[in-house]
């Protein structure tokens, strides 16, 4: 269906570009609008009044506001992967081809079968979940919850991955300003002229705030002209940055602010290589909240009928968008400001049906206007609205004194006064204070460095907004350390604001407080009767203010009704705590580019590209990608590849990139003494040119990390950590050095990324190394004995560090070269090693060989084991103080019945082992009382031709030889295993010393 008439578009006026028509669709129907429209204004221009169904009762709803406070007009915007639910039609910029759909209705918006919920309204009162769906308990998950979720709710998420990109950025400034109304622009002028670095954020796509709809005269010129002159002046200032489509949503410690910039939401999809939204973290010395005020509804029966609209929103649609929400407008107000809508409507040629003014003292000017334009002024209140999904038809009025009247109108503008936007100023648990003359909460305090100005500060007149904004801008710039001349402040008219508080007109039928969550005045009264009187209880019991709009239009009215029924004043009733974000922010924006493969940084080993060329399978270990095994063609699974790699090492020679180990240079005259304090064993006695295995404890006595440390010179040690603990150990050692033992003269340098390190292992290791190392270097067992460590020259002159250490149990060296030579080294190892059948091996084969040797690794160094648990008690020096020494001696940590590392073999040699299985005494029924421990590491040992493993078992060393039961309820496996010496291979270590 095509409807391009724009039946409710005014003939002239508005900030729309009539030369740029745009087509869009709503619920599949095609409409036309103009550049400069929002979806809401374009719908209004097409006479669309019904835009959605309410959350609980599926009541027909229209557009209530013209800004980000909108509770009703939420739509699903776009389609497919870009479909975004709960998008406010009032802030969604129109673009050609825009697709929107209404939410929470079935089968269609006009004929919503779920509206049957209204018949059951008596059970949907506040707290209905808790009262109605209690019994039987198991019905909740099976029946009640799914049914409620289908019936109640908002829009549908896309359900597929977001195709767009999001960015995150930092900005710094002296003065940050939220809002571009008269106060915000005046603040920017003052701060900018003084020379401050200014950032001004405006959520709208046009600058000017309420001036865009309400106009006025500033410095003797029309507001529009003043805005364009001001923007020209600001553009000419050197350091004023204006960010439109950018909402300041949060205030954080130390003058850090969160802002969301909708970079490309006004286009069907972002242009190539551009982001959709950008999350800003802005660091500002001072900030000014000039975010204005939000007009508040009056709660009366039928106040949610489509066509009932905030008075300020109605004149925004008329003046800014040249779109008429109604032809014959009635106004219900309790303040003088509401009358501006009458003036705007009359100016646009619309009819005024009547003004219902709750104040007894309507001004003579307004009465004269009524007489001139020929509409009645009714002193009283609206008590009912006749109409439905097609909008308002008739309004029932109760006059002061008791008489009743009826007004025929197709639109009702409502003004209950204004609430300053106190969110940003209250985010550090600030409580706003009540100001009687405007019957509203205004900021009382603000986070450090922040101040409010203009309507956000309770100053409603144009002149006052300009003065406050300008003064705030000047003060902020000066207190940020700038000292220029602000010039003179812009001058505008001072308007008087008169208001008689009116929150709720009692009557029969539903009167809505929170439109988005369908909370009515009677829900609040019920909450009070049931004892949920505290505002925080009221909020949670009724869900008042907990919808996506965070109660911007509803919170204060709700408090006022609670105050009235509990016979307290509004300030006594108080406000709930304000929390960011001010507007919903997409999770994607918080993630930015950190998703999918960029979720975290990726660290590549020096041999990565070479390994990738070999077709290696990689495994993620922390941030690293490590080669797990190197499959060869014809191998049917990982086990076959790994088995081949292990056999090649044990029978010939292989190498493995171990560059991921943490590496720390320790320099200084006290380097040895320092290491003595952080390791349980002694390093000051280590000879230059030797390496030693070291174990570190936490101060609570548990094992922290292990690794080898070599003494390269009298005052230079080279320490390695596990891959996982590289960062934490560096931090821990710096703490020990700087805080615990500052008297020791030692320096730490992280060199993890500076060295490429390879383990070369197997009986032919020396043969291979001789092809690589300068022939002058003595690699014989005498010239380079086990646990030797020194610098050597390679063929070609590059210096390398060579360590005769072994994790595999074979004759082995580790060789370190500067990281930039890592790739060349690995290629040369392959070339030179061809004659020896050199085989690269991955982390799986590395793990198999360490289990065969009974070396502990991550699964055993799990933060709950002591040195003695790992069989390393003898390493613990008794002659010196070290971190963790005293606590390691605690009763429970030295108890005889601790679980200790032991080897396991299945009694059935063909049986596969799995880690995680529990160890139970043979013949007993498994349970928590007889659980002896669990299997930590397993592998298939090609050397022993069977599965083997390590386990932590209570009194394990005493049990060696015992047959126990492995119980694996997770995988449904039960089998017997024999506890054995954890060193399965070459227990006397002859091979590694040979």
């Amino acid at each position, binding site marked *: 269906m095509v409807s391009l008439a724009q039946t409710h578009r005014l003939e002239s006026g508005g900030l729309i570009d009539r030369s740029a028509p745009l087509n869009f669709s709503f619920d599949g129907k095609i409409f036309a609008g103009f550049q400069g429209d929002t979806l809401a204004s374009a719908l209004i221009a097409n006479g669309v009044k019904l835009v959605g169904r309410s959350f609980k009762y599926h009541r027909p709803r229209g557009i209530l506001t013209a800004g980000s406070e909108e509770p009703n007009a939420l739509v699903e915007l776009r389609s497919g992967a870009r479909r975004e639910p709960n998008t406010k039609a009032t802030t969604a910029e129109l673009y050609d081809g825009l697709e929107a759909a209404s939410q929470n209705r079935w089968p269609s918006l006009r004929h919503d079968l779920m509206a049957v919920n209204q018949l059951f309204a008596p059970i949907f009162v506040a707290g209905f979940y808790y009262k109605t769906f209690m019994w039987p308990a198991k019905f909740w998950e099976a029946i009640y919850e799914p049914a409620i979720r289908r019936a109640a709710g908002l829009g549908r998420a896309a359900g597929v991955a977001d195709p767009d990109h999001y960015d995150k950025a930092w900005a710094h400034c002296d003065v940050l300003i939220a809002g571009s109304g008269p106060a915000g622009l005046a603040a920017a002028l003052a701060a900018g002229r003084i020379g401050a670095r200014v950032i001004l954020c405006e959520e709208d796509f046009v600058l000017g705030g309420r001036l865009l709809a309400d106009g006025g005269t500033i410095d003797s010129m029309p507001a529009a002209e003043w805005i364009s002159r001001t923007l020209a002046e600001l553009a000419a200032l050197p350091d004023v940055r204006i960010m439109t489509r950018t909402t300041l949503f949060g205030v*954080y*410690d*130390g*003058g*850090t602010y969160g802002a969301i910039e909708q970079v490309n939401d006004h286009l069907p999809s972002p242009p190539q290589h551009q982001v959709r939204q950008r999350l800003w973290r802005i*660091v500002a010395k001072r900030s000014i909240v000039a975010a204005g005020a939000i007009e508040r509804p009056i709660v009366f029966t039928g106040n949610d009928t489509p066509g009932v609209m905030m008075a300020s929103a109605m004149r925004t649609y008329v003046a800014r968008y040249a779109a008429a929400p109604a032809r014959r407008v009635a106004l219900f107000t309790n303040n003088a400001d509401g009358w501006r809508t009458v003036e705007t409507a009359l100016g646009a040629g619309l009819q005024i049906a009547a003004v219902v003014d709750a104040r007894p003292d309507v001004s003579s000017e307004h009465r004269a206007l009524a007489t001139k334009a020929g509409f009645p002024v009714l002193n009283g209140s609206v008590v009912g609205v006749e109409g439905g999904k097609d909008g308002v038809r008739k309004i029932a009025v109760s006059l002061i004194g008791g008489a009743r009247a009826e007004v025929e109108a197709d639109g009702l503008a409502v003004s209950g006064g204004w609430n300053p936007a106190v969110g940003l100023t209250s985010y*550090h648990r600030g409580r706003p204070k009540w100001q009687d003359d405007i019957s509203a909460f205004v900021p009382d305090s603000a986070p*450090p460095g922040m101040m409010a100005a203009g309507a956000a500060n309770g100053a409603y007149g144009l002149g006052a907004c300009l003065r406050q904004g300008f003064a705030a801008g000047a003060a902020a710039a000066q207190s940020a350390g700038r000292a220029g001349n602000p010039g003179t402040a812009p001058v505008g008219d001072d308007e008087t604001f008169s208001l008689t508080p009116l929150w709720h007109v009692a009557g029969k039928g539903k009167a809505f407080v929170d439109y988005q969550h369908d909370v009515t005045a009677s829900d609040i009264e019920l909450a009070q009767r049931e004892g949920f009187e505290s505002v925080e209880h009221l909020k949670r019991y009724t869900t008042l203010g907990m919808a996506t709009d965070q109660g911007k239009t509803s919170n204060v009215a709700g408090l006022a009704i609670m105050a009235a029924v509990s016979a307290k004043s509004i300030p006594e009733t108080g406000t709930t705590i304000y929390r960011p974000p001010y507007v919903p922010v997409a999770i994607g924006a918080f993630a930015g580019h950190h998703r999918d493969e960029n979720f975290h940084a990726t660290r590549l080993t020096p041999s990565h590209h070479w390994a990738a060329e070999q077709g290696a399978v990689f495994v993620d270990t922390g941030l690293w990608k490590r080669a797990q095994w190197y499959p060869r063609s014809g191998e049917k699974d990982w086990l076959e590849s790994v088995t081949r790699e292990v056999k090649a090492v044990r029978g010939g020679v292989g190498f493995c990139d171990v560059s991921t180990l943490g590496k720390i240079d320790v320099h200084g005259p006290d380097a040895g003494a320092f290491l003595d304090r952080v390791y349980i064993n002694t390093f000051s006695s280590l000879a230059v040119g030797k390496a030693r295995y070291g174990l570190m404890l936490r*101060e*609570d006595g548990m094992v922290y990390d292990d690794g080898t440390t070599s003494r390269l010179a009298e005052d230079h040690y080279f320490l390695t950590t596990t891959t996982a603990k590289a*960062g934490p150990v*560096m*931090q821990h050692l*710096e*703490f020990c*050095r*700087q*805080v*615990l*033992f*500052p*008297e020791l*003269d030692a320096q730490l340098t992280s060199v993890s990324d500076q060295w490429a390190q390879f383990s070369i292992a197997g009986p032919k290791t020396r043969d291979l190394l001789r092809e690589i190392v300068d022939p002058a270097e003595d690699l014989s067992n005498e010239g380079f004995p086990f646990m030797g460590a020194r610098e050597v020259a390679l063929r070609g002159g590059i210096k390398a560090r060579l360590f005769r250490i072994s994790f595999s149990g074979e004759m082995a060296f580790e060789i370190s070269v500067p990281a930039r030579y890592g790739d060349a080294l690995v290629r040369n190892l392959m070339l030179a090693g061809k004659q020896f059948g050199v085989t690269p091996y991955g982390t799986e084969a590395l793990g198999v060989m360490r289990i065969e040797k009974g070396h502990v690794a991550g699964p055993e160094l799990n933060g709950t084991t002591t040195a003695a648990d790992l069989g390393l008690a003898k390493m613990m020096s008794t002659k*010196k*103080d070290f971190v963790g020494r*005293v*606590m390691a*001696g*605690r009763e429970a940590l030295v108890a005889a019945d601790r679980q200790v590392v032991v080897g396991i073999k299945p009694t059935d040699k063909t049986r596969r082992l799995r880690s995680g299985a529990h160890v139970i005494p043979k013949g007993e029924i498994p349970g928590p009382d007889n659980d002896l421990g669990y299997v930590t590491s397993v592998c298939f040992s090609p050397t022993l031709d069977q599965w083997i493993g390590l386990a932590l078992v209570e009194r394990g060393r005493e049990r060696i030889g015992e047959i126990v039961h492995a119980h694996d309820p997770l995988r449904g496996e039960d089998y017997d295993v024999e506890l054995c010496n954890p060193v399965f291979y070459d227990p006397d270590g002859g091979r590694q010393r040979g």
Partner: protein
Amino acid sequence: MRIVCPFCGERELGEFTCLGDAKPVRPAAGASADEVFDYVYLRDNVAGETSEHWYHGGGCRAWLKITRNTLTHEISSVEPAAGVGAAKVGA
């Protein structure tokens, strides 16, 4: 949150790691198990100003002693925790 590192200047929270209470002092070698137990485990839960150890791992790797109000997050002083760094800054 922003922290003014005495070595690097004002930096963002993400560069730092908080260890916790800076008040307990590691007992000298030979201290009793009870003294070490108190050092390892006993902490005050202060509502107000407290001193904490923070690590500038994303910058100069200095350990800092920061006085912070746990109610407002206001930081009133940042100084090198101890040792060589302190001596350098003092010089």
